């Protein structure tokens, strides 16, 4: 195991030439000069501007929609509603990696058919010659609604007498349809060992309930799509997405056309964090383009981004843990419900898998429920499902440690998950780095540095995310000057062109700068799953590795041809092609590339992978120092350290960047961020009222990269995108307790909640 702190300037790790260094990213120049073209920047000749009309009601039946006045407005070129979908759309179930969804649900989320299920649910879309006319036209559309009772609380939605959102929704119980009509879409259960026995033998048992509010991914670029549907039936979509092939699959499915008719061009993307996996606008823009005969671009307003897209589910989580006198965990039980929003598909499986994933629990039971209610359909958000359940487990672990008088790191080390431990979902861990992150925490100067003031406290917590594998593709072409064009299928959301190119370069002994990486569209690169699941550097990097291996083999054959020698006599070492017996015959990659014009066809290498995944994952441990203002309840983060097992860090700066970004999102989730609802309507749909952390709210975030290589990956990469968001709220809750002696079990830990808890404690002590 190796560990790199961001205070050391890692310059390679000795084992590799390119991996572990910090080259400037290939797309950096375009992004610091404003030249990079994002989805919102797409402009086409003759392009129209679209906007969407959305429901003001949380639950209502659509009696009629009258669009005639809007159509008559000068400058309006098309208006569409759900009636414009082809009538024979299927109801297949499609997998989007972050979940599986029914096409009918996806279609009615794009344009509501008979009912609107949440405030912000789209009912019609308009295309006009400019955005202002489109907005005026929306006001001219008359929708006759019959208001229905709504439900916005997860427990109320689960009751038998709750208003039902869908006439055809029944509860699924692992492959079995219970047949009961309900807002409970599914139930997930995991179980190992003998729970009663485990609790029976426990000396300490602690149980609490926790709640978290919906939070938004908060990407700075709004959703957008530009579509051109030509009369030959060929549809092209330019959009910011985490996965072009996913947009192709969804758009084709929703519109009822073959995927071969849809080409998706992934533009530069301004953030996603899970929220840019589902489509919202591409099918609307496509229908508008078909009707108007012109390309149509829609940029969602920021208010609509909040009201209509991707929050996380609000959650209710109950956790109970039993331990013996030494602090050894004997049993654990969790019961939770996630508010999926208007359509099923919240990450219940992930919550169930993550809740006890950091430790060895010989006996455990988890029950999770996916519940629909009248709020926007939730979407994945960085380590979906993990943060709320880890908050519960880690807070209780801290209470057990306190009760037994055991050091909080020692109790975690005593129980830490490691190779051979069976997780509650039944799978057995391979080599993982949980323990290593805790050991780094224990050794860290932060852990030993005393706090220096009243109302200050330190909290430590551990988290996990599973990480995905899945399909990725890359194709390389060798240029005559010895550089290589590398086309890969993963949208670059945070420097992944560089980390993929570096893995390619490593194989061929080339500098990172000799590779020109680009992201292909659905017609120019092999199938590649989304940028998400912490999988890009892992899987697309692996595809690039395979492509590089093929280039290497072909270049060796070319060297043999050049020397007119048998292929067996060529070796490749340290970036140089060598003749086995004739020491004078030596060619660098660049020299050999210069001879390619006389050596037959071009050298092209490609790689496609679909690696297994599911049990390695990445662990994080973080430490937070806070100060609580006893008069206002405001919590200030004084110091923050994030430690993560990266397997192998390809480009340490971007690994640190993921860790720092996830940490600050976790801090926002812990302290500020929340959807406020009143009468079924979101009250804070702007960046002013939905407050994500600014740079004034947070300190520098120290990082320690731990490297416990992934045994399956050619370079040992694990993927680092998500696990850093899991432990910060727990660490901060624990730090607040250590500062002022109150336990908060509801996110966000707003000043008023902290203050109320402090006052309650004060009252109780009198």
């Amino acid at each position, binding site marked *: 195991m190796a560990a790199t702190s961001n205070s050391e300037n890692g310059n390679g790790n000795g084992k590799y030439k390119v991996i572990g260094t910090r080259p*400037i990213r290939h797309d950096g120049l375009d992004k610091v*000069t404003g030249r990079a073209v994002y989805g919102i*920047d797409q402009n086409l000749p003759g392009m129209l501007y679209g906007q969407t009309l959305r429901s003001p009601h949380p639950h209502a039946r659509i009696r009629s929609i009258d669009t005639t006045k809007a159509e008559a407005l000068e400058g309006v070129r098309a208006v569409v509603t759900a009636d414009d979908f082809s009538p024979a759309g299927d109801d297949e179930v499609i997998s989007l990696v972050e979940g599986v969804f029914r096409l009918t649900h996806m279609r009615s989320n794009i344009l509501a058919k008979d009912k609107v299920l949440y405030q912000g649910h789209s009912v019609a879309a308009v295309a006009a010659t400019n955005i202002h006319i489109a907005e005026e036209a929306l006001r001219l559309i008359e929708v006759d609604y019959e208001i229905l009772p709504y439900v916005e609380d997860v427990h109320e939605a689960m009751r038998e007498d709750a208003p039902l959102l869908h006439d055809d929704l029944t509860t699924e119980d692992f492959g079995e349809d219970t047949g009961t009509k309900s807002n409970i879409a599914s139930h997930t259960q995991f179980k190992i060992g003998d729970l009663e026995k485990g609790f029976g033998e426990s000396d300490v048992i602690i149980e609490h309930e926790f709640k978290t509010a919906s939070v938004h991914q908060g990407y700075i670029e709004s959703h957008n799509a530009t579509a051109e549907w030509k009369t030959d039936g060929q549809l092209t979509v330019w959009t910011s997405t985490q996965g072009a092939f996913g947009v192709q699959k969804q758009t084709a499915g929703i519109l009822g056309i073959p995927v071969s008719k849809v080409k998706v061009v992934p533009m530069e993307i*301004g953030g996603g964090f899970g929220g840019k996996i589902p489509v919202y606008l591409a099918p609307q823009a496509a229908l508008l383009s078909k009707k108007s005969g012109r390309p149509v671009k829609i940029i969602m307003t920021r208010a609509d981004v909040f009201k209509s897209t991707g929050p996380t589910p609000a959650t209710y989580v109950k956790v109970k843990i039993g331990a013996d006198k030494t602090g050894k965990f004997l049993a654990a039980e969790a019961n939770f419900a996630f508010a999926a929003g208007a359509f099923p598909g919240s990450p219940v499986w992930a919550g169930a898998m993550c809740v006890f994933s950091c430790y060895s629990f010989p006996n455990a039971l988890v029950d999770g429920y996916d519940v629909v209610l009248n709020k926007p359909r939730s979407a994945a958000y960085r380590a979906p499902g993990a943060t709320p359940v880890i908050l519960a487990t880690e807070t209780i672990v801290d209470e057990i440690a306190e009760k037994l008088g055991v050091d909080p790191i020692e109790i975690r080390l005593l129980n830490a998950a490691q190779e051979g431990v069976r997780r509650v979902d039944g799978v057995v861990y391979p080599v993982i780095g949980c323990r290593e992150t805790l050991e780094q925490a224990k050794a860290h100067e932060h852990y030993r540095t005393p706090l220096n003031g009243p109302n200050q406290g330190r909290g430590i917590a551990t988290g996990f995310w599973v990480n995905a594998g899945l399909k990725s593709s890359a194709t390389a072409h060798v240029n005559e000057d010895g550089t290589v064009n590398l086309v890969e299928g993963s949208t670059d959301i945070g420097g992944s062109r560089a980390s993929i190119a570096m893995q390619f370069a490593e194989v061929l002994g080339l500098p990172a700068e000799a590779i020109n990486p680009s992201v292909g569209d659905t017609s120019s690169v092999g199938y590649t799953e989304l940028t998400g699941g912490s999988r890009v550097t892992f899987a697309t990097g692996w595809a690039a590795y395979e492509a590089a291996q093929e280039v290497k083999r072909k270049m060796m054959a070319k060297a043999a041809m050049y020397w007119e020698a048998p292929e067996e006599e060529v070796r490749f070492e340290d970036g140089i092609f060598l003749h086995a017996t004739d020491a004078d015959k030596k060619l660098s990659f660049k020299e050999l590339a210069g001879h390619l014009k006389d050596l037959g066809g071009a050298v092209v290498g490609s790689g496609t992978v679909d690696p297994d995944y599911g049990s390695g994952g990445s662990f994080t441990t973080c430490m937070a120092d806070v100060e609580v203002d006893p008069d206002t309840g405001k919590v200030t983060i004084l110091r923050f350290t994030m430690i993560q097992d990266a397997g192998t860090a390809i480009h340490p700066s971007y690994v640190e960047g993921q860790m720092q970004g996830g940490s600050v999102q976790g801090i926002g989730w812990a302290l500020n961020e929340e959807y406020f609802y009143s009468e079924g309507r979101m009250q804070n749909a702007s960046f002013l009222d939905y407050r994500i952390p600014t740079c004034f709210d947070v300190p520098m975030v120290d990082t320690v990269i731990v490297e416990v290589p992934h045994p399956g990956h050619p370079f040992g990469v694990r993927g680092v995108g998500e696990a850093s968001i899991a432990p910060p709220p727990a660490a901060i809750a624990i730090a607040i307790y250590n500062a002022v002696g109150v336990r908060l079990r509801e996110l966000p830990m707003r000043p008023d909640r902290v203050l109320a808890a402090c006052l309650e404690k004060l009252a109780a002590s009198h």
Partner: protein
Amino acid sequence: MGKKLYINTTINGEAVEFLCEPRQSLLEIFRDHLGMTGTKEGCNDGNCGACNVIIDGVLMNSCLIFAVEAQDRKIVTIEGLASPQGLHPLQQKFLEHASLQCGICTPGFLVAAKALLDQNPDPTEHEVRHWLAGNLCRCTGYDKIVRAVLDAANVAPNTETSLQSSN
């Protein structure tokens, strides 16, 4: 909708003319009419800083400025930071410090940071954080952005760039 108005302004040192409606924002003119999409739109309501430009030396959100207000002003946008001789030190430091992930907030941060360094060439970390609090970044956690700005402050700006900023 009113008649279009004729506006005459200076953008990145060059005289620019355009026609606009009274209701159009300066951001809309840049992005939809002048082909200058380097200035980003994140919220269109003054809360993210992605659309930052410098007008007569003052940092502004261009989504909150009507295009007609550009008459006779001197405007600096992200496209005006680099010169043919090279990048502005801030741009160079953002690259070296890996201060961008998705990069959508980057033009706004660079323009805002330039406005800061133009008036306070040697800011403290606190001053940098205070100044940049109007710019949202969801990817980086701000650590590497703040480091890059502090580092850039230590580099003497190249003459070409300071020429541009005095335009």
